[in-house]
Each structure stands twice: as C-alpha cells, then as structure tokens.
C-alpha cells in the first residue's frame, strides 16, 4: 500500500452506498507489492454503476449493449466452428462429429455459467484472468493471464489460416486457381493488415461487426433450414444414411478436444466486461446466449453437412468442406454464399480476437505482471499500439507454420486450463465468501456445475494430440518462470473496493 503514490486517493469514499463495507473488510488484501522493475499494480479505486465506472477523477462510460456482447461472442466463435472445422471433424469422427460439437457446447455451458457469476461480481476488463488472480492469487493469475495472451494469439493465427483457405477457395470460385501454396502468404498479409488497421483505425467497426454477425446468422439459418429438410428427405433424393460413429467412441472425444476452439468466444465477452452496460443482466445473457446459439448451429451444421456430402468426402476436402456442402445443396450460388460467409466469419473472428488479446495484455500489465509499457496508448490514434503489436507479431509467426490443428488445439489447451481454474475460483469464492463478493447472477446447480465444468475442462486436455499438449504445457511452464523472475512479490488476491 505505501507504494501507491498516484493521486493519494483515500480508498474509503464516504458517499458510495453501492459498495458494501469494502473499506473495513480485514481479510482480503488489496493488490500490493512490486515487480522486479519496482512497479506496483494500478489500484485505482473504482465504483461500478450500470452505466459507467466511476473513479476519483473520471468516469468510464459503459457502451457495449447486449447485442454488442452477443456479436462479440457469436462473431468470434462462428468462423471456426462452421466454416473451418466441419470437414476436419467429420473426417475424424464421422457423423458422430455432431456429438463432439454437442459435447463441446455442454462443457462450454458448464464454464459459461460460473464465468457469468464471477463476471457480474467483478465486471472488469481482463475476464478470466481477473477472476482467477483475485480468487486464487498471483501465481495462478500470472499463468492464466499470460497464457490467455498466448491462447488468443494461437486462436487468432488459427482463424487467419482458415481465412487463407477461404480466400484461395474464393479465387477458385472466381476461376483463378492458385493452389493451397498461397494460403499462408494470404493469411500473413491479412494478419498484418488487421494489426495495422487496429493500430491506426479510429472508425468504430463495432456496428459493422454487429451487421456481419446478423448477416451470417441469417445466411446460416436459411441454409440449415433448407439442408435440414433435404437431409430428412422432404425434397430431393433421400440421402443414404451412413454409419453414425464409424471410428468408435474415442474419436468423438479427441474431436471434441480439437473443435473446442469453436467455443472460445464466450470468454472474449468477459474480457470486455468492464465496458458492458448493465453488466448484471447483459453479461450472463451474452455469454450463455452466445454459447447456446452457436452450439445449436454447430450441431445442425454437422448434421446437414454429413447428410449432404458424407463424412469421408468432407474429411478429404478439409478446411473448406462447407463450400462443397453448399454446392451440393444449392448449386453454384450456394457455394458462393458459403465462400463469402467463410471470408466474413473468419475475418470477424480474427479481428475480435486481436481486440481481446490487447485487452488481455492490458489487464496483466495493469497488475504489474508485464511491464507498464505494454499498455501504453498513443494520443495520435488513441489506440494501445504496444499491446496490439504484442498480439500481431506472434500471430504472424504462428500463421507462418500453417498448422491448423495444432494451432487450434494449443489455443484450446491454454483456454481450457483457464476455464478449469475459473470453476475452481468460483468454488473457492463461494466457500470463503469474502465481503466484497456479491454477484448479481448466481450459478444454478452449484456445486455440481462448477465441479463438472472444472473436471471436464481438464479432462478434455487429455484427449489432445501429444504435440499440442507439449507446446501448451511448455508455454505454461514459461509463464511460471516469468512470474518467478518478474512478479514474485506482487500480491493480487482479494479486492479492495
């Protein structure tokens, strides 16, 4: 505490009735200590109201509504789950890939509920990192916070490679055959463009994102309605049913581990929790709502895709298999609609993830786990150029590998560890019940939901490829090393105001 030099603000604000006796709570220490550079966590006392956060000298407007939150969640998720994974998943698990996606949805839901509760109790930027560092302490916080950065970087690289496949396919649809050799260069180019645009672009793309998501959803629902009727034989030739799980049950789980990347978006909603209007209502609705919406869409898509084309053929085509499903169902216009949808969807996924990455970096840098420089904002564009660069640089390196499956699985690995710890954090907080913990939304089915959520998150990690597990574990060990070197003396557990 004595290190807190800025503005000399007294934490006890006599006028705020909103915060229940936070000032006199003895047990939880406010964030304190210093990192190796002598920087202390930024501990500006903040009062949250539904419309704005209020600090001593300024107000931070909350501007993202429910539709904005849903657009972030759905917009991030839909690109991967519908436009990249169906082919790969069907190739590994057969028509039972629908079950894998269903399993992923259930696990995501088991985590989304505890995350919602924590987010309404602590509506701050940083999402899962913030909850874990405040509930479990600095080491788990540092591991999750920095891993979240890496996880989002891997996820973004994965979306970008997906975009590359769709770009090449779009060219093919237009009669220009360039071959898959151009996938990675195109993805690199686009990744660099997204980063630069985020640093220099001051136009608000949020409304555009909402529009893209609405457009995608309507294309998909129309497409699935037609395809679904076709699959059950209402019109067209009845398709020959194939064996549901031709490769047995184990691939269902390994595929679930792979495709779990399609559900990472709901935690992205938590990273903007500090900017959501009426967080008590909108955060749970946006997180749970987006998981339910995309979960249903994914399962339906796999069902339609495997019925229309057959899982062996889907697996052979791989990343852009949905284009052939579109052609099978609706001819050339169908293929074109899917190609354009895939471009838009992977683009919006990549963009939303870059934004989340920069917020994740800000959250850990604010708490002195990374150098303060990482969260600098430039006055020219008003953007956090350092954090965006720390997102964009590694993304390009990873894109260059072009390894779709490994990228996706490492992203899932790093996120799943975070999800498991979020569930643990919920149980810990419910048991300790500190004074500052006052969530507006309470997880139904406690303690079964968070316990199941934690167990299934950790279990899913076990079904991944060995390479992904090794890379993921190595990254987490590296974050432990960073913590030991850089931020051992920082203490983050508890909330002061």
């Amino acid at each position: 505490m004595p290190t807190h030099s800025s503005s000399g603000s007294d934490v006890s604000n006599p006028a705020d009735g909103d915060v229940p006796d936070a000032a006199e709570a003895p047990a939880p220490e406010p964030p304190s200590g210093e990192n190796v550079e002598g920087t202390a966590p930024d501990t500006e006392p903040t009062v949250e109201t539904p419309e704005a956060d209020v600090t001593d000298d300024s107000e931070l407007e909350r501007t993202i509504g429910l539709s904005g939150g849903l657009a972030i969640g759905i917009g991030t998720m839909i690109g991967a789950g519908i436009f990249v994974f169906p082919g790969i998943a069907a190739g590994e698990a057969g028509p039972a890939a629908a079950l894998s996606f269903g399993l992923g949805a259930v696990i995501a839901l088991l985590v989304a509920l505890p995350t919602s509760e924590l987010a309404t109790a602590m509506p701050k930027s940083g999402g899962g990192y913030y909850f874990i560092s405040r509930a479990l302490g600095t080491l788990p916080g540092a591991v999750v916070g920095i891993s979240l950065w890496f996880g989002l970087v891997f996820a973004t690289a994965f979306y970008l490679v997906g975009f590359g496949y769709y770009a090449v396919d779009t060219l093919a649809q237009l009669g220009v055959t360039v071959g898959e050799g151009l996938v990675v260069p195109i993805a690199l180019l686009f990744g660099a463009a997204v980063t630069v645009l985020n640093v220099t672009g001051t136009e608000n793309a949020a409304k555009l994102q909402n529009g893209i998501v609405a457009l995608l959803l309507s294309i998909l629902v129309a497409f699935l309605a037609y395809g679904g009727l076709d699959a059950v034989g209402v019109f067209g030739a009845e398709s020959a049913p194939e064996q549901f799980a031709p490769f047995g049950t184990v691939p269902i789980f390994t595929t679930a581990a792979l495709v779990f990347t399609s559900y990472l978006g709901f935690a992205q909603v938590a990273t903007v929790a500090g900017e959501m209007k009426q967080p008590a209502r909108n955060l749970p609705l946006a997180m749970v709502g987006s998981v339910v919406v995309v979960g249903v869409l994914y399962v339906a898509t796999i069902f339609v895709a495997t019925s229309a084309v057959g899982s062996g053929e889907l697996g052979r085509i791989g990343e852009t298999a949905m284009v052939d499903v579109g052609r099978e169902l609706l001819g050339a216009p169908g293929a074109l609609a899917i190609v354009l949808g895939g471009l838009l969807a992977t683009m919006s996924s990549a963009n939303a993830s870059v934004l989340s990455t920069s917020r994740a970096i800000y959250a850990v840098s604010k708490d002195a786990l990374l150098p303060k420089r990482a969260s600098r904002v430039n006055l020219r564009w008003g953007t956090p150029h350092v954090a965006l660069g720390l997102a964009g640089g590694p993304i390009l390196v990873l894109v260059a590998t072009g390894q779709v499956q490994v990228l996706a699985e490492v992203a899932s690995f790093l996120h799943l560890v975070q999800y498991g710890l979020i569930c643990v954090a919920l149980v810990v907080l419910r048991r300790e019940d500190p004074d500052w913990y006052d969530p507006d939304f309470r997880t139904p089915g406690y303690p079964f939901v968070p316990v199941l959520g934690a167990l299934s998150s950790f279990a899913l990690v076990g079904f991944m490829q060995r390479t992904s597990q090794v890379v993921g574990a190595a990254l987490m060990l590296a974050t432990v090393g960073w913590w030991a070197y850089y931020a051992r003396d920082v203490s983050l557990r508890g909330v002061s105001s």
Partner: protein
Amino acid sequence: MTRVLVPVAVLESEAVSLGLMNLLSTMDVTVLGYQVLPEQTPPDQARAQYEDRATSALEDIAEEFRQAGGDADHRLVFTHDRKQSIDRVADDVDANAYAITGATGAVDSILVPLTGDVDVDRIVAFLTDLIGDRDIDVTLFAAASEANADAVRSALEDVAADLDARGPAVTVETATSQRPLEALVDAIPGHDAIVMGERAPSLQSLVFGDEAHRVAAESVGPVLVVRREREPDAAPELDADDDRNDESTLDEESAVDDDAAPDDDADRDSTSTDEATDEATDEATERAGDGGDGDSPTGR
C-alpha cells in the same frame, strides 16, 4: 439555478472561447471533459495514462469560467460513445442545456431558431435566465412555407412579446423556404451565438446527425442546445431520481417553518446530485461557488 453542460474534447486541445465564458456567466456550468476512444482501447487504459493531464486542463477551464463570473465544476469521462456520455452526464447534473463550443468574441446578439417541433416555453425560460439584465439582442427566427407564413409570423410575435416583457430586446425574422436548415444558415451572419431547442430523434437525425450539430458545423460561433423534457419512461434510473428530488423538496417545504431556509438550500443541492460518488466533490464545488453567484456578469 439553470445549469449548462459544456462538453470539451480536452485531450484534443479543444478550447472554450472567452465570449462563451462571458455569455454563460449567469449560469451554473459543468465542464465535461471527454475523450472518445476507438473500440480497441478500454476506457480504463486511457484513464490510467491521461487522467492527470486531462484533469489539470479541466481545472483550468473551470477556473476560467468562475473568473468570468459564473459557477463551474467539472467532470471527466472516457468513452466510446460521445453522445451517450453527454446525455448521461446532462441527466446526472440536471442540465437544462448543453453547449457546442465555437469561436466568438463578446456576444451581443443571439439567434434563436424556432422552426419545427421544439419546446418554446423551455427555450424562452432559458433565454430569460441566460440574458438576465444584460444588453443582448435576440432574433427569433423561423422558416415557413408560403402558405402558413403569416401564421408562423404571428406565433413568433407572441413569443417575442412574451420575451420582450421579461427584458431582452427582440426582433422577429421569418424566411420563406422549404429548407429550414439552409434558411437558418443564411440568417446566421450578424449573430454571435445560437440558442436552439433539442429535437426528438428522427429518421433524419439518424441519417444526417442531429440538427444542432449540423447547425454548429455551419456556424462559427457557439451553439447552446436547450434539452427536451425527459420522458420518465425513457430512463428508469432518472425516474428514481425524480422521486428522490420530490421527497427532498417536500422535506424542504416542511422545514421552511423551522426557520432553516439557508441550510436547506444546500441540502437540496446535494441531494439532487444523484451520482453517489461524485456527490462529495460536486457538493463542495457548488457550495464554494454559491458566493460567486451574485458577481457582476462582466466578470474579470
């Protein structure tokens, strides 16, 4: 007391002209410093870096308003949405009008467009408070189609008579035009400032931006926008506030008998500031400024 919100893009070095400060010397002023951030930037991140700089600039501006003669406090907001923040803070401090700053010297004449569906009573009441006993001319302006030009003119004459009775020297000007905005812009030369009413959001304002900002873009001088009456349904939070205010007013009435009127005024001031957290600072500024209210409008 009539309160005017003066939003200032403080980190973009937006300045408030001396003419506007002197014009507002009869008002309570809340200077709202704001920075609009792109969506890439969490407001908290910008706060961490710019709060000190912005606050010291705001304190200077508020001090200049006080020196010009009025009472002034300040707020600072980091936002993705300028309009949302201005509306929220205006509700919060119960502002009757907000200002769009512009360059002007001493304000001797004000143009008041009354075309269309605006709340004339609120505008007249605001003008009366704004001008006080100063020697400032008012031009009431309306554009009308040929057919109802006479009706519009006589309506304006009525308003002019009402306003005239309260002090200011009033002239009436009408234009025959199908394009009210263009007619208004043509009428601007010769006037130093514009006072206009806020309109309800319409399809047009969604497409082109709201009228006040289009007028401000065309005129060099400052524009004061008199806010609409807030609908109770529109903002449930505001509703709760109103209730609270009503209560305190009742308390006040019952307390008047107890011969405690001066203290009571201060009480009412503090309860009508609804944001709990800002209460302390606002209250302090308001009280400190109470003494300055009677200063001569010529200020420094």
